[in-house]
């Protein structure tokens, strides 16, 4: 309440100094603006860093945690697992992953995802770092193919990632052998690649194996290159003896393949991506020339062919000319109505292609090529000249047999039988069989000999020997009297000798004198030795005068 006198008192109160009105924008209003700007920038930043949301399905979500598992490429975070859920059929887990911005163009049908966690495999231990940090999802970007948002994760890490340069090839094998994923590929025993995958062909007729050969070695793979299996140990018993083959200890444990290009195939073009090769069982098989032309012949043997197996070599004087194709039963020509072993052999003219004729005189190249053109006719001609086949022991230890063809001019004349399915080359018994046959013949002759007569003669011989003995018995007393007289004479001679050598005999006295002389000589020798011991210089200077 204002009282009348109060204002008067207040009139003495001085006035405040009025400042000039400061006009302009109130600075405080910049604050909400700044807050808006900062907030908006933060929001924009997170939104712009947000990439596409994708889903990846795995069999299990082992080691994966919502919000904590990252997707990494070259160890850089490119995404984060948002949620983990099951697929509708509960058969897999579906990870919803927020990828970073800019990853859209690398999310295509060829992109791959897999979980990195500690693993122990043929190639060593991987992912040890994730023991502490927890599993993460590795991402392999690819800009090829159609872009997509849903992926199926790999259960095992891929062997070959995009940061490896090289070429992939496909191998076809009858059997998988010891090939395993991650197993090495050798080139001159260098580890230069890996087995990436394998699967059965759609019609199950072969095994399809993928290999990856790292650059720069991939350019050594030509279209004429041979691949073979080096895994494990291969022990083969053949006509050439037992053979143990092994590549390396690692290959022994994990398997593997090797390849080689023969010099004559080096000018074939370098093989491109996904070229298909045959994977051979071993190096020998791989480096064998691929045999395309064969001429099949039939051999019929009389005796047992135990020790001969399909695949055994056919040799002409030690040079391989073919292979035993099959062993079957067929009509025995010697014993009508029974069966005997029939051996089918393949004569392979290509095997002899590389042999050069050194003296060029006899079998000219034309002749060889003629042989290659029509081997059946040529062999038919040679059979007339004495070409025969026989079984030979390749190895005495294993007892493996092989087929030898050679020209035996002394063999009984025969011709090639061409009526059947295959032409037939006449055979000879093998060497061992021959020996047995001659022993048989000797025994047969022995059997035929007149044993009875021989025994009678022997008996007569015995009788006459007995007569001789009785005659000797009759002349015995006369003979013994004469022997006694001779002994007496010998006795008297001995007595005379004894008398002359006794001590007082003639010889004895002389012997005693000689012994005395020897002992005197020995004494003077002893004196000299004693003197020399004291005066060794006497040897040079002589005995000085005393």
């Amino acid at each position, binding site marked *: *309440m*204002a009282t009348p006198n109060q204002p008067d008192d207040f009139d003495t109160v001085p006035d405040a100094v009025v400042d000039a009105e400061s006009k302009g924008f109130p600075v*405080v209003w910049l*604050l909400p603006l700044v807050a808006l700007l900062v907030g908006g920038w933060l929001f924009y930043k*997170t939104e712009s860093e947000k990439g596409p949301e994708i889903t990846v399905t795995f069999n299990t979500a082992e080691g994966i945690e919502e919000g904590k598992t990252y997707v990494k490429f070259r160890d850089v975070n490119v995404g984060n697992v948002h949620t983990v859920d099951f697929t509708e059929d509960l058969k897999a887990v579906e990870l919803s992953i927020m990828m970073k911005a800019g990853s859209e163009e690398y999310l295509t049908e060829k992109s791959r995802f897999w979980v990195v966690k500690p693993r122990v495999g043929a190639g060593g231990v991987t992912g040890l770092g994730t023991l502490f*940090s*927890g599993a993460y999802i590795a991402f392999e970007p690819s800009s090829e193919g159609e872009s997509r948002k849903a992926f199926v994760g790999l259960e095992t890490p891929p062997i070959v990632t995009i940061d490896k340069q090289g070429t992939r090839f496909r191998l076809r094998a009858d059997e998988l052998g010891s090939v395993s994923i991650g197993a090495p590929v050798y080139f001159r025993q260098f580890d230069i690649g890996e087995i990436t995958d394998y699967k059965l062909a759609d019609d199950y007729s072969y095994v399809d194996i993928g290999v990856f050969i790292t650059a720069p070695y991939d350019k050594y793979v030509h279209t004429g290159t041979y691949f073979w299996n080096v895994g494990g140990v291969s022990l083969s018993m053949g006509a050439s003896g037992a053979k143990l083959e092994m590549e390396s200890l690692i290959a022994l444990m994990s398997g593997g393949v090797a390849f080689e290009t023969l010099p004559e195939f080096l000018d074939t073009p370098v093989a491109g991506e996904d070229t298909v090769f045959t994977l051979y069982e071993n190096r020998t098989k791989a480096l064998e020339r691929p045999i395309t032309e064969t001429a099949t012949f039939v051999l019929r043997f009389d005796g047992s062919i135990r020790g001969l197996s399909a695949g055994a070599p056919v040799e002409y004087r030690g040079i391989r000319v073919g292979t035993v194709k099959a062993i079957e039963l067929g009509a025995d020509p010697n014993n009508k109505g029974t069966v005997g072993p029939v051996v089918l052999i393949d004569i392979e003219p290509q095997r002899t292609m590389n042999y050069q004729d050194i003296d060029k005189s006899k079998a000219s190249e034309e002749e060889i090529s003629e042989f290659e053109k029509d081997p059946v006719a040529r062999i038919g001609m040679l059979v007339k000249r004495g070409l025969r086949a026989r079984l030979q022991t390749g190895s005495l230890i294993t007892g493996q047999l092989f087929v030898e063809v050679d020209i035996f001019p002394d063999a009984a004349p025969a011709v090639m039988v061409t009526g059947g399915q295959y032409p037939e080359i006449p055979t000879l018994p093998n060497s061992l069989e021959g020996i047995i046959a001659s022993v048989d013949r000797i025994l047969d002759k022995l059997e035929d000999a007149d044993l009875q007569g021989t025994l009678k003669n022997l008996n007569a011989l015995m009788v006459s020997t007995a007569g001789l003995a009785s005659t000797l018995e009759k002349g015995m007393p006369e003979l013994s009297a004469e022997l006694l007289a001779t002994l007496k004479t010998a006795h008297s001679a001995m007595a005379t000798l004894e008398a002359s050598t006794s001590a007082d005999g003639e010889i004895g006295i002389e012997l005693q004198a000689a012994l005395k002389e020897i002992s005197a000589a020995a004494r003077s020798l002893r004196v000299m030795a004693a003197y020399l011991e004291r005066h060794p210089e006497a040897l040079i200077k002589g005995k000085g005068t005393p």
Partner: protein
Amino acid sequence: MRARDAGLASCHTCGLLLHLPASGHTHCPRCKSPMHLRKPNSLSQTWALLIAAMVAYLPANLYPVMTVVSFGKSQSDTILSGVIYLFVHGDWPLALIVFIASVLVPLLKMVALLYLLVTVQRKSHLRNQQRTRLYRVVELVGRWSMVDIFVVALLAALVNVGAVATIEPGAGAIAFSAVVILTMFAAMNFDPRLIWDYEGEKNGNAEPAG
């Protein structure tokens, strides 16, 4: 009667009683300190700070306040996810404290300031005493919301053991401290005398009759 009605005010700095014009910038002739009957632009400044605080409140709650990196595993927590974590793991008293101190209090503070601003602008003269008490509470409680920020700052400084464990403050922490500071300034800029100004007007109207 208010000092304002008499056109009088004492200098905040030296206490000299002066005649002041109803509006305009003035200063004390003795100590040269600026003088005013009411805090100049109080409402406008409070509005600006409050709006800034409200804007900052969104990222404060949406962005992680801290990221714990332990053995390569990193975990980011926002204020609310921390509260939920505590609650789920049975530490509900602690969860309640964090929730009240970090979520509820800043929110209520902003609502209270908003209410005060709106009522003053509408020249309301209802429940003046309660509103004044509300203002006092707002001013008092403001500084305690910084506890969260202290915790994060301490942890970030202390837990720095390389690969084993590292704690990094997140964008949310900065936004949250901005909220606390801005609301504190807003409360400071609000002139509680404004609450009573209009009561005086009303009373003044009734005065001649009385």
